[in-house]
């Protein structure tokens, strides 16, 4: 059983993805999707850096909510910069040290920072565990670092480590 399902959660999510894409709950689709899910999760065990453990599901839900709110907020603020013809945003780089070392956590943080307009994850240094972020409208560097620490990194640490 363990050999067939090295990553049961991944396999279940893949099956769910298959069924959603096929828009069908028929037995044939479940069998076919199940076969694909098992094959892909077996293949994935060759490249995944390790098992994902979700330690706190409540933090995950909280993170999704926070990310949703921030995406909407930053969309509005970037739009305001764009429609103001005289605005020249004071863009700048931030280099910050992270506590987070879990690879999945880092990947989620990169997706989050990139998905919010106004901040972009540019370069990660695995040796020093620092990340270079570019911010479109940079006013206070320390405030940005504190925001990322408290809003995202704290939750990601709770989820993955």
């Amino acid at each position: 059983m363990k050999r067939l399902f090295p990553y049961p959660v991944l396999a279940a999510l893949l099956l769910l993805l298959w069924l959603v894409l096929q828009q069908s709950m028929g037995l044939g689709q479940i069998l076919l999707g199940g076969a694909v899910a098992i094959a892909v999760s077996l293949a994935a065990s060759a490249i995944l850096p390790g098992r994902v453990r979700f330690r706190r599901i409540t933090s995950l839900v909280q993170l999704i909510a926070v990310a949703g709110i921030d995406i909407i907020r930053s969309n509005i603020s970037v739009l305001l910069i764009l429609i103001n013809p005289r605005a020249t945003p004071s863009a700048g780089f931030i280099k910050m040290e992270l506590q987070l070392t879990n690879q999945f956590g880092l990947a989620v943080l990169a997706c989050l920072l990139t998905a919010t307009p106004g901040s972009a994850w540019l370069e990660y240094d695995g040796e020093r565990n620092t990340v270079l972020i570019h911010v479109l409208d940079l006013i206070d560097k320390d405030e940005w670092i504190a925001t990322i620490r408290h809003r995202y990194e704290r939750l990601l640490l709770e989820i993955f480590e």
Partner: protein
Amino acid sequence: MIDELPLWLSILVSVCVVLGAGLTMAGCLGLVRFPDFYRRIHAPTMGTSMGGGLILVASAIFFTVTQQRLVIHEMVIFLFVTVTTPVTLMLLARATLFRDRIEEARDTPPSDAPKD
């Protein structure tokens, strides 16, 4: 098709589509308007986050109502776009950083990598 939709729902769907398309359009204009590479990468994100998201929400509502079953596979598009954008972004950004560091352009953050 649109006749099967109650008025308030078709208004909701239309508002979502127009807002989403407007945000995506604004992002594209930003890509043209901003002066340098690093600022330009921020604008199109509006299309891949909220702009695209609103269009997908409108699509999900519309087809859920007209086909009378839950249509949510639009969410998969959002998931895939969000997961894959950082890959191309990092590729482009690191290439630009590399170029700027070699050209010693102004305001480029120094690299941490040991020089060899």
